[in-house]
């Protein structure tokens, strides 16, 4: 039986938003299918938060249409609100309230939803239910924020940078929560600038840069589009350095890029290129200071598309 395309939980067409002279989003189109986890991946300032806040009905676009769960903000705003779960970037919930009180407060806004106990259990904050919000760690606060987003039993969950600034354990806990929501059939739209997060969580990702979608697909397809089996990173001591034409002439090299003090080569097979690379460096008398190989990631996709690194600190 031919599969009909799944219905769209979110459809964005021709979106545009400017703040004064600064164009945050230009002609952005997106379609998120029901039941998938969709990632907006891009560096800080790419327009991810502006896009997601327009989809959440918190900002009005300058141009373009947004359809959420088949409805429009202008006509069905109130009905839509009770079907969405939202965690904004950097919301601070009231520090004087306890975990339980905060969740109960948010539950009271929704006509129907999960019980307070159920949601606190989902985000594993049972032990903290009587603790004041002000005493929670960053990861616990973020899980509480997600609990407040889940308590209305939403069909569509928007998470803006849910794991930014969290330690690895807290990130994994949040990933599990998002996985569970997806396994129950919920649709998730999240923004992130962590490529590993997008690869781990998302069925499809849109890479956003300068307010435009520059690439769209499953993480696997985007990585495969590079045509590279491996990425080799190396550094050399002394000068003169190696030059790009030399590297591109080596066996199996598809692209060569200088990043900081080291080089990154996308290659079809590491075991063919590495001997050739070592030979070329030895013949120039350049000692190797570091050598790493990894499978290509979304980070490499982004770098290839923009010539820039995804994360400020990377």
């Amino acid at each position: 039986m031919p599969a009909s395309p799944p219905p769209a939980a979110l459809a964005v067409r021709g979106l545009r938003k400017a703040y004064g002279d600064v164009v945050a989003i230009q002609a952005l189109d997106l379609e998120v299918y029901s039941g998938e986890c969709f990632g907006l991946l891009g560096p800080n300032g790419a327009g991810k938060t502006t896009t997601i806040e327009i989809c959440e009905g918190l900002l009005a676009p300058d141009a373009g249409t947004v359809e959420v769960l088949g409805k429009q903000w202008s006509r069905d705003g109130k009905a839509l609100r009770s079907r969405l779960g939202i965690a904004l970037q950097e919301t601070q919930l009231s520090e004087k309230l306890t975990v339980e009180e905060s969740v109960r407060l948010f539950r009271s806004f929704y006509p129907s939803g999960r019980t307070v106990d159920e949601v606190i259990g989902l985000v594993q904050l049972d032990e903290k239910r009587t603790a004041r919000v002000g005493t929670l760690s960053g990861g616990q606060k973020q899980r509480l924020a997600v609990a407040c987003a889940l308590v209305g039993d939403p069909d569509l969950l928007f998470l803006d940078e849910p794991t930014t600034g969290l330690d690895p354990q807290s990130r994994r806990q949040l990933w599990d929560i998002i996985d569970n929501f997806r396994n129950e059939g919920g649709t998730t739209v999240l923004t992130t600038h962590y490529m590993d997060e997008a690869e781990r969580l998302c069925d499809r990702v849109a890479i956003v840069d300068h307010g435009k979608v520059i690439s769209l697909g499953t993480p696997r397809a985007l990585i495969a589009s590079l045509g590279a089996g491996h990425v080799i990173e190396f550094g050399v001591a002394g000068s003169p350095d190696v030059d790009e034409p030399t590297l591109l002439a080596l066996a199996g090299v598809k692209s060569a890029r200088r990043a900081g003090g080291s080089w990154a080569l996308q290659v079809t097979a590491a075991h063919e290129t590495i001997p050739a690379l070592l030979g070329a460096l030895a013949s120039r008398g350049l000692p190797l200071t570091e050598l790493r190989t990894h499978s290509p990631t979304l980070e490499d996709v982004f770098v290839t598309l923009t010539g820039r690194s995804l994360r400020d600190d990377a």
Partner: protein
Amino acid sequence: MTPDRASRVKSKAGNTPAIGQLTLARFREFYREPEAVFWVFIFPILLAAGLGIAFRNRPAEASRIAIVSGATNAPVVDSLKKASGIVVETLDDTAAATALRTGKVALVVVPKADGGVEYRFDEARPESRTARMVVDRVVQRAGGQKDPVPVAETKLSERGSRYNDFVVPGLLGMNLMGSGIWGIGFAIVDARKKKLLKRLISTPMSRAEYLASFLFFRLALLVIEVATLIGFGALVFGVPLRGSVLQLVTICVLSSLAFGGLGLLVASRARTVEGASGLMNLVMVPMWVFSGVFFSSGNFPQAAQPFIQALPLTAVNDALRANMLQGASWGMVSHELALIAGWLVVCFTLALRLFRWR
């Protein structure tokens, strides 16, 4: 594809009305902040107690005077020493001058050889002018002066006309203003700064219910505030409560709502606590000064009166005093109540129109 989701019945169990939860949140945020409790409940009582002690009614003070020694005019000196209300010191010329200059005495009397007296005093000092009159009267009587007109005196210290009676309603008005503007203004600006307002409006929460929760909270707190301050005034200073309780409650509720509306207006756009704080001072300081909290607003010039009478706190203080001290009829406070209601309507309308949720 996902049958479990489609078939799941959304639970409506265990839910409580949002307005109740929002109002509860206001209370929790308040009583879990001990400083706020101090400023709202304890501080006005401390202030009332301090002012009450400073301005308590005391017996008329005696005039302290000096007589320059080596006096030759014995009858005058004797009669001054015997007179009530005068404390006499006998000093030499230099010491008397020093005592006068340092304010230890209000007047120096120099008896003259010819039977006359000389008064030395600073006319700018009220207590010196009083001493001169008191002393002169004793001196003239000793000299044989008779009062041509008979005089009878009745001394009054009536409840309702003392300074404490004046200041307690003023403090109550000031408290209603302060907690209305601070209590609502800071909480809202803080929630806006923390992006909590934005998070709240991303839910189906009713915005009107959110703002109403602040008013319910204020009204509930009002009962405690008014009861403590009036109870303290009545028990400790015997401040009277002559008007109807219903009228007092009406004045307090209407005032609290009006100041709450003013608080909302002040907080409607400010993004930082510092910015809101400046605006609140701009709104409140003129009323502290002009609206007759500590002294009558009638002390200001006639030209300023239209402005002063239009201030909400002036109307609140006037209405509270009329109720508590004079037992006013509804007709006597109708003008004030109308003015307060006018502020309430204007502030709310403007605040709702200007309010920034992000």
